């Protein structure tokens, strides 16, 4: 039981790429909503939004990974993750599913265009492989 939960990941989409975020790091997933830009802040910070009366900072994962910007669609979601003692939102193209990986392998040279230090490893399930994100690194300034 415990091992099963340990391998549960939320799979998100960013263009053609798929990434896994460990389920314990995800606080909730909300639909895209109005975000207020914050001037003079980190370039990948999308802004702040209202999460039930609290101010939630939101980052843009595409910008974080230096990918081409994309328009919001009806699939665009904000993954609210726990970071230190705060909640931080992450804008992603879509949230696909929750998967249980059969195995996590350490990162080797991958085809992903994304910086290796954002990765925690490679999740395997059946034929598919998914990059597992190191949320701490992704969110760190």
């Amino acid at each position: 039981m415990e091992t099963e939960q340990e391998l549960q990941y939320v799979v998100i989409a960013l263009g053609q790429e798929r990434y896994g975020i460990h389920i314990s790091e995800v606080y909730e997933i909300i639909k895209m909503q109005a975000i207020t830009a914050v001037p003079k802040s980190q370039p990948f910070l999308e802004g702040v939004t209202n999460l039930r009366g609290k101010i939630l900072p939101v980052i843009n994962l595409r910008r974080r990974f230096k990918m081409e910007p994309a328009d919001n669609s009806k699939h665009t979601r904000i993954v609210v993750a726990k970071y230190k003692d705060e909640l931080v939102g992450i804008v992603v193209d879509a949230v696909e599913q929750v998967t249980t990986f059969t195995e996590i392998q350490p990162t080797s040279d991958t085809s992903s265009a994304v910086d290796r230090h954002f990765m925690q490893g490679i999740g395997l399930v059946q034929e598919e492989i998914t990059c597992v994100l190191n949320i701490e690194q992704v969110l760190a300034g």
Partner: protein
Amino acid sequence: MFDRKEMMEAFLSEVNEELEKLEIEILALETAGYTDKNIQSIFRVAHTLKGSSAAMGFNEMKQLTHEMENVLDQIRHGKLPVTTEAVNVLFQCLDTLRLLKEDIEADRTSHTATDAIVAELRSLGDGGQEKPVAVHNPGVAEAGEHPFEWNEEHAAALLQAELDGMGAFLCRVMLSELCEMKQVRGHVIAERLNAGGFVVAVHPELTESMEAREICFLVASAFDGEELQRQISNLMDVEQTHISGFRCDMLRAQETESALAPIVEQSASASPAGKEQDAKRLSQTIRVGVDRIENMMNLVGELVIDQTRIIQLGNRLRDAYPSDENIDVLEQVANHFTRVIGELQESVMKTRMLPIGQLFNRFPRMVRDLSQTLRKEIHLVMEGEETELDRTVIEEIGDPLIHLLRNAIDHGIESKEQRLAMGKPLVGTVRISAAHQENQVVLTVEDDGAGIDPVRMKQSAVRKGLLSQQAADALTDQECIELVFLPGFSTASTISDVSGRGVGMDIVRNHIEKLNGLIDVQTTQGQGTTFIIKLPLTLAILRGLLVKLNTSTFALPMGSVVEIVRYDKRDIYSLKGQPVVKNREKVIPLLWLHDQFHIPRKPRTRDNVFVVIVGIAEKRIGLIVDELIGNQEIVVKSTGSYIGKIDGVSGATILGDGSVALILDVTGIFQLAGQTKPVYIEEGAS
């Protein structure tokens, strides 16, 4: 079981209160001289502290207060004169008690040495005679006279009781001197007296702060006097009882007499009596943890936001379905909701309010010590102690006020010789006052000292390299005076350890600006200086002016908005590349916040622009905005540590439509304007 932590908290807050009382009373002892009431109060503080510290097992405190009691008892009985020496020792006691309290707060034990002060108390005590054994027992007052005034209700109750076959009695009860919680004791007695009837009236009222030893009960009872006496005489702490019959007309009789009798008493103690009454009314309180109130405040904040949203939703529905009756109902409910939330918000805000007197109480002692060190005689006047301010504001404003006071005494008030030469009264006056003014609190610190000399200010600033001679020459007198707020500026030619500690007026100003406040200075040479501080009542909710920069909405704290003006484009001049406007004979620089915040400037279709002139202290700057939305209450929220500090932004708020608007920080905006001048000149020219 008792919760040790809770007891400790209760103990510490009691000690705090008692020490504050002690300080006030000792100061009164020194300034107003010996009065019975005053010495009694000091005695009572010592006694209370002795009791509670003994209960908590803090021996040093117990021993010290015990010795204080001995000395005070001698003073009380006229066996020891109130000398300066005695007052000084009492002050030392107060300081030592404070240290002990801090020890206890820090690590739950007391280790400050008390031997020296105890020895001093003893040697002081030896000056008097042996400790008296018996405490004088003022007898129960004669029957016939009583403290109750004519009161229709009481009279009616007595008459009714008479009809019901009950008798009326006047019960005087003398409580033991050592009785703690006299209020509770009073209630227990009243309960006993209720057994055969009911208590019609009590004098004095049984409040928490009731200090009188003698309590009078007006009782209607089926019992006779003897039976009543039996009911209460065996109670704990009851020293003496006296019960006499009472007739309703005795109430009336007193009324006619009262025209004459009380005058004598009143003239003796007119104002203190009134103050005591106030104090009694105020002290009917419960203690609530700060975090609970903070939590309530947060919840109310969310309600305020939701309420605005509901109203906006109602408006939208009204537009969509103009004739739907359900929307009428919705609007009614929403309006009621708004009213209730408004009141709720106000009462929660009020619970966070404290009288600023709590802070002012710290000053007399400080001024006393300071005037001794500097050998200046200072008369401190405090006004508006009852002015209420948000807890957080009071906490934050303490240090700046202390600094201003120290400055006024050290630099403002001249030495005695100088004052004599100027033909001024030898005693310098420092006045500190607080008052409400609309939605703000105005604090002033005023001295009748030498005032600030603009020429000396200018010279000093140039000498210190803070200003070029050229720039200094261009300054007006008022601008010269405002140089005191410049970082690294201090006018006293010698640094005293009183106010020359490297904490300058610039820190004071920064502090006040952090609270969304303003500070101004006015001075007349030879006559004195006044610092005026304006502060918002609270930090949690403020009135904000909502403005739009292109499509983004921002909130400006109303407190820093000086004026909103519409300018024709032709009225904007360029001064050395800096866009400026003329406003009331003053040249005001303009700032395109758009450029600072990387927001595209909106293409202008009209010939005029809105300029919001904001100010802190004497500085003014005009912000060009694209649209004015209006002003409303906004709930201040932190943007959190993930985002961290952003220049020009102090926080965020949630608007009626649920979106987030950033709150602009005017101090930060001035800094932005200072730092990045070249950027906007370039863009302004394009």
